[in-house]
Structure formats: C-alpha cells, structure tokens
C-alpha cells in the first residue's frame, strides 16, 4: 500500500520501489563491485598485464595471488585489467542494439497494419539467425576490430528488442489516450515520443538489463573463440580461452574471469527482475 508519493518522476519512484527489494540490493552491490573492479582494477594490479613473472602455470604463491597463466603472466593482474574491454564493449553494443530495436518497435507499432507487418516480417528473418552465428559471420568476414564487434553484437540485439517493444507499444496504441491524441491531430513523431515512449519505459529497462547480460555472454564467447580481442590483450573472455588447456593444473586463470562474468550477469538480472516487479505493481495501480 503506497501512500501518495511526491510527484516529479515516476522513474524515480520506480527506482525507489526497485531498490526496496532485497534482491535488487544484492544485485546493486554485485554490479557496483564488478564495475569498480573493471574501471579501477588496473591501478591495483601488481604487474602489467603482459609481463612474464614466473614459469607457465605456476601455482598460487605469496607473490602471485592467483598464480601464473599458460604463458607465465600474473593471472591476478590480467584479471584486474581484463574487465574494462568486455564490460565496455557489452555496454556499447547494448545501447546500440536496444536503441535501434526501440526505434523499430515503436515505428512498427504506430504504423499502419501493412507497414507494421512488413517491418515485423523482415524483423523475423533477422531473428532466424542465431546471434553468435551472425556475429561470427561478420567478424570472420570483416576482421576482428573492437568497434565491429560492438556494432555487430548490438545489431543482433535489435530485432529481439524490437519484438518486445512492438508488443508493449501495440498494447499502448489501443488505449484511449492515444486515440485522444490522434483525434486532436498530434503528429506521428509526437505520439511516438510523447505518448508511446513514456509508456514502454518499464519493458524497455527490463529489456536493457537482459540484453546487457546477453552482450557479456556474446562478447566473451567471441573472445573465447579467438575472434575478439587478440593476444596479448587482457580480456576475461580471452583469458578463459587461453587458459582452458591448463584448467586441471592451474584453474585460476579460467575460474576468476568466469566468476566475474557470472556474478555480473546475476547482479544485473537481480536488478532488472526487481525492476520488472516494481513496474508491474505501479502499472496495476494505474489501471485499477
């Protein structure tokens, strides 16, 4: 039972409701922790990411917290250096992909039936490509540039986001306040931005969180397959690939990045799930 809240921004209210939930708090702590690690990690690294400090696959010792990797480099230092690229790339590709998908979805939902169908069927064709296959196709064809990976991963998100957003927006299009806007002659772009967009923010943010975790998985997978960042760069995905051969002798080179990726994914999902819950509560109150 929410008492009347101060007006201002419903998003702020949603955020407050989201972080009231225990899972969201845990998720927030995890995400902040991993982000801190990724951004400031390099400053705490005892060695540079590419210097040879010991024999290959040296076990943990007092000087090497997580031992050495298959080349004899410090796993701990490489781990602290490897977060930036994967999280940065994932973030950029998510923004690109969800943004593009949002545009397509809103445009299709507000278009006439025929245009809508045409867009969505073309969308379905793109959906037929598994994301990883599409990314590998492009990356193996055009080379392994970091920028290309971000754009391609983002592009594969777009049709998936477009589906979700179109469904949410199509439901909103049927409501009377849209008809009211049409009846007074509001322009299409004004209806999309002023009436539709604010009413799909909840699914949009949930979708953003979900796509973010997918991005991490994809970028890590591309690096793992050797088509992402190239050695000797430090990157969590790449590290898993490099060190998997020595998993039995020196597991830390694989375990540390896997744990970080998994935790980050779980943290983001905790937040988005809580957000979805909060949004459902608010929307239900609105509709009565």
């Amino acid at each position, binding site marked *: *039972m929410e008492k009347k809240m101060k007006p201002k921004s419903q998003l702020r209210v949603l955020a407050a409701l989201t972080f009231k939930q225990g899972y969201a708090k845990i998720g927030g702590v995890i995400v902040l922790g991993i982000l801190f690690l990724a951004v400031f990690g390099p400053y705490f690294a005892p060695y540079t990411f590419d210097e040879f400090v010991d024999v290959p696959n040296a076990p943990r010792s007092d000087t090497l917290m997580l031992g050495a990797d298959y080349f004899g480099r410090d796993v701990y230092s490489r781990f602290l250096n490897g977060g930036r690229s994967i999280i940065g790339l994932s973030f950029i590709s998510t923004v690109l992909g969800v943004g593009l998908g949002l545009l397509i979805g809103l445009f299709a939902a507000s278009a006439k039936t025929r245009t809508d169908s045409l867009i969505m069927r073309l969308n379905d064709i793109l959906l037929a490509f598994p994301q990883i296959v599409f990314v590998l196709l492009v990356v193996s064809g055009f080379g392994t540039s970091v920028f290309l990976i971000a754009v391609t991963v983002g592009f594969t998100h777009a049709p998936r986001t477009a589906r979700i957003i179109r469904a949410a927006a199509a439901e909103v299009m049927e409501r*009377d306040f849209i*008809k009211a806007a049409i*009846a007074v002659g509001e322009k299409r772009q004004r209806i999309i931005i002023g009436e539709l967009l604010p009413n799909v923010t909840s699914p949009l943010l949930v979708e953003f969180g979900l796509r973010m975790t997918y991005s991490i998985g994809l970028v890590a997978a591309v690096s793992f397959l050797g088509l992402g960042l190239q050695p000797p760069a430090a990157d969590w995905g790449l590290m898993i690939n490099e060190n998997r051969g020595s998993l039995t002798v020196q597991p830390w080179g694989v375990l540390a990045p896997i744990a970080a990726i998994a935790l980050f994914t779980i943290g983001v999902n905790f937040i988005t799930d809580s957000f979805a819950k909060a949004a459902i509560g608010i929307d239900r109150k*609105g509709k009565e």
Partner: protein
Amino acid sequence: MSVVKVSNVDIAITRGGIKIVEKISFEIQAGQILGLVGESGSGKTTVSMALLGHTRKGAVIESGSITIDGNEIVGAEEKMLRSLRGGTIAYVPQDPGTALNPGLRIEKQILESLEKHQPELDHEVHMARVREILTEVALPSDTDFLRRYPHQLSGGQQQRVAIAIAFACRPKVIVCDEPTTGLDVTTQSKVLATIRALCREHGVAALYVSHDLAVVSELADNVAVMYAGRIVESGNRDEIFFNSIHPYTRRLIRALPDIAGRNQILGISGYAPMPWDRPSGCAFAPRCADAQSICTQSVPELTQISASHNVNCHRHKDSTKIVATARIERESISSSTQSLLGIDNLNGFYGSRQVLFDTNIHIQPGECVALVGESGSGKTTLSRCIGGLHDDYQGQISYFGNALGKHALERKKEERRDIQYIFQSPYASINPRRPIGATISRQLELFFGMKGNAADARVKELLDLVSLPHAIITSFPDQLSGGERQRVAIARALAAEPKLLVCDEITSALDVSVQASVIETLKNLQGSTSVALLFVTHNLALTRSIANRVAVMRKGTIVEYGGLDEVFNSPKAEYTNRLLQHTPTLK
C-alpha cells in the same frame, strides 16, 4: 427467526491491521431481501463475501459473529464452510461472463452443486431439478439448451444461468453481488423479477449488494447504507428512501437521476476515502454540509429511530433535509438557425457488418442532445464517427454546413479544435506517464501556440472551471480518483475552447454521487460557455438532468428523436416506452 445474523463484524488487513469494515451488524429474515448499498470502496463486497466465510487474500475477519441458518461462520473450519457454500448459502456473481466456466456445458455447471450437496440422489432426480430450476429462471430447459456452452448465451441468459446454479440446491440464503451491473435495463428488470420471485416463493433470505439505489428500491425490503466501511443507516425500504436521516443517505438519493424529472440531481463533492486514509471521527464529515466539530472528533454511535430504523450520525436530530428541487424547464433551442453539426444519412460499418443505418441528427449551437441506447446499439460508433476516430462510414457529417473529413487527420485544425471527444473510461483516456498539467497544457500549445506562464494561468482557469484544485497540476493520473480523472479529461477538452463536446458514456465508470457532480459541472459549463453537447449514455434517466433533446437508438437506427418532454411524456416509439417502463426508479 433470522436466517442471517451478523453482529459486530470487523474485517481487517492482516498486515498493518487497517480495518476494511467495522462494526457491521444486520439480520435477514427468511423470504426477505436486504439491499446493501454503497459506493466503490465502501466495503460492501467485503461484507457480502464474509457471509460465505470468505475474505480476500490478506484480510481476515477479526471479531464478531456471523450465523447462517444457525451455523457460526467466523472461525469455522474450511470443511464445514464448504458444506454450507452452494447448499445452504449460495452466491450470484457480478459478471457471469467470467464466473461461468467457458469450457463446460450449462447442464454440467448446474449439476455440479447438486451432485456435491445431494450425492444420495439419482442422476434422473438431479436432471429433473436442473430442468425445474431453468424453468423457474425463465430459461428453456430442453436438451438442446442444456448442451450449450456459456458463450452461446446472451449476457442476460448467462446471468440467469448463474442464478439457476445458486438456487439449484434450494439454499436458505443467497448473496447477490451487483448481478445486473453489466446488463441492459430491459434485461435487468427481467433478472430482478426472477430473483424477487424465487426469494418469495422459496422463502430465501437474500443479501443484494449494489451501488444502484434505484434497483435496490425496486427489490429490497430492508436497506443498509454503507460508507467507508461502516453501515451509516439502515431501515426498511420506505424509511431509507423517503425518511432518511443520515446526510450521506440523503445526498445519495438526491444524486440519483430520476426518470420522472421531479428533482434535479445533486452531486456530493469529494470522494469516499480508501481504508488507509479514513479520517478520525465520522468518515463522511469532510464531505458533509452538516458537519460540526464533534463530527471530526468522535465516531458517532448507533441511534435507534424506530424498531427497524437505525442511524450513525451525531446530528440525527437536526441534519438538513434536502428538498428535491424541480428540474429547471429546458427550452428546446429553435432549429431555425444553421445546425452546428449535421449528420445526414450516415451508414456505419465494421468491415462487412453494418452497425449504423441511415442516421440523421442535427445539433444546434449551445444545445445538449442526448443519444440513448443499450449496449450494441451503435451509439459509440456514431460518436466516434463524429469525433473522427471511426472512418468506415458512408453519408455525411457536416460542421456549420461544411462537410467534415472522415478521419480526424483529414479535417482542418479548426475543426479538430471545435469538436472535442471525451472518452468513457477516464482510466484509459489520460496518459498515465504524464503530469496532469502537461496533459492539459499540451492542448493549449497545439491549438493556440500557448506556452509558459500564459499556459500555466490558463490551465489553472480550466481546473477552476471543472472544480479541481490547482495542486494536481504536478500529479500523475494514478494519484487521482475516477471522478477527478474524468474532470481532467473534461478540462483537456475545454482547453481547446470547443463548440461541441462529444461525451461518450463519460459517467458510466463513476459512482452516482460523482456522476451527479460531473453532470453539474457540464451543465454549468453549458451555461457559461454555450458549448453544445452530444451526451451519449445508456441511462435514460440521466438525460432528464442535462438534455434539451433526446435521440433514442436501437440496433443502429434512431427510433425516436425529439424534445426532452416530448420523448418522456409521449414517446412515439414502442421501444422508448419499454425503456421508460424498465428503468428502475424510486417510487
């Protein structure tokens, strides 16, 4: 002996202990009908479900006692409750469309409770009873009908099947939760007659829950009026409807549209508080014209007026009588001037199905034309054609003699500005993610290019016009009640300074007291701005309070069109007559 005895029942939300209803007491004798009246949020449904030993999730019967035919319900075991439900006490739901199982045949649904409660009898005996009860509720009882599914029946038939299920085991008590709300008046009066006859013949005690005073006055022997979780007044039918004492009851009766036109409807300002922000003292005090300091300090005790008449009011000795004021005679506006809006030979379609047939209506500047019809009559389609929201039609709609484009976007900006459409549900017609002030000022920017301080000032003027506080400018729709939202929708329409307001059932989602004040607002507007209204409604009685002329619509055809008094006093169409007869009214 009382079959139903409820004494001092409190029902509260388990978390936080907030009381939903308090100190509820009443009795029902065999064969009698108690009408439980209240507006939304008053707790009437909570009370009715408590008779079945059911509380909604998260609520609990805290104290008090409920006995049904001698069985204590409060604290009873689930097994015992189950044996009572359907057998001794039965329930008729509000919406049969969702209460009947769409996957089961009618026969099976009626048989279910018989088989549960009388397992000792043969199938043949059960089937005989099924046929008997169907005949009693005036439905066919042939095998063909029994084999049907709910979707093959009309709304009225579905509701009668629900009643048949409730009466199948010859219960001692029946609880009806607004069973006629979704039905047309003619169907409603048949369903009410069925309930009345069954209760009389079989000596069934009934609790009839409704927000519609007129329906209750036609059906009930005794009436209890609920407000904010308490029974504020109870008595027999005549005591409540003609000698009421509590200010709320009096105002509620005055808010009721009267088909005889004896009184002008009068709204109650404000709205009923939700359980968690009920004021201390008498809950009605903030809306009450008679309130004194004692009313806000202590909760009034029950006072007995006569053997059957009880009231909870500090001022039961000297509360103001509200005298019925006669309807102000409304002159028909002469039709010599050029019509503001002309609809000529309009035929409307939904795909290949025709829903409007050769419709003709002319509206003069400043007049109010009421368009009355039951559900499916095409009245909403017609109003949407006028509003430019439905363009699948042939024929012409003209504005001051000039043909209008079919779709809003094909019309001139001035035409879109001058004809404003107000939607039925204020819950859907306002963008939930935008502050109220922005919703209204957008209209000013769109039509007059007004922005900044000028727009702010104008928004405040508009809010005054529809009696809303300026503070709601920064509020979002979910912080407002239904009545307030509908006023926002009206203010938004008025922002365009329209010549014609198309009002599509704009009060049907609102409580009667709120409906009355919205109607008052509209009428005052008509006086001060000379805007013309097309007032679409299913409630014939309501048109008496606002219209100059009335058009009655049936199955896409206008069957009657004339001045208000003409239509009410000497209706030409047989259909209008039937509507007039079946509309429930205080007699």
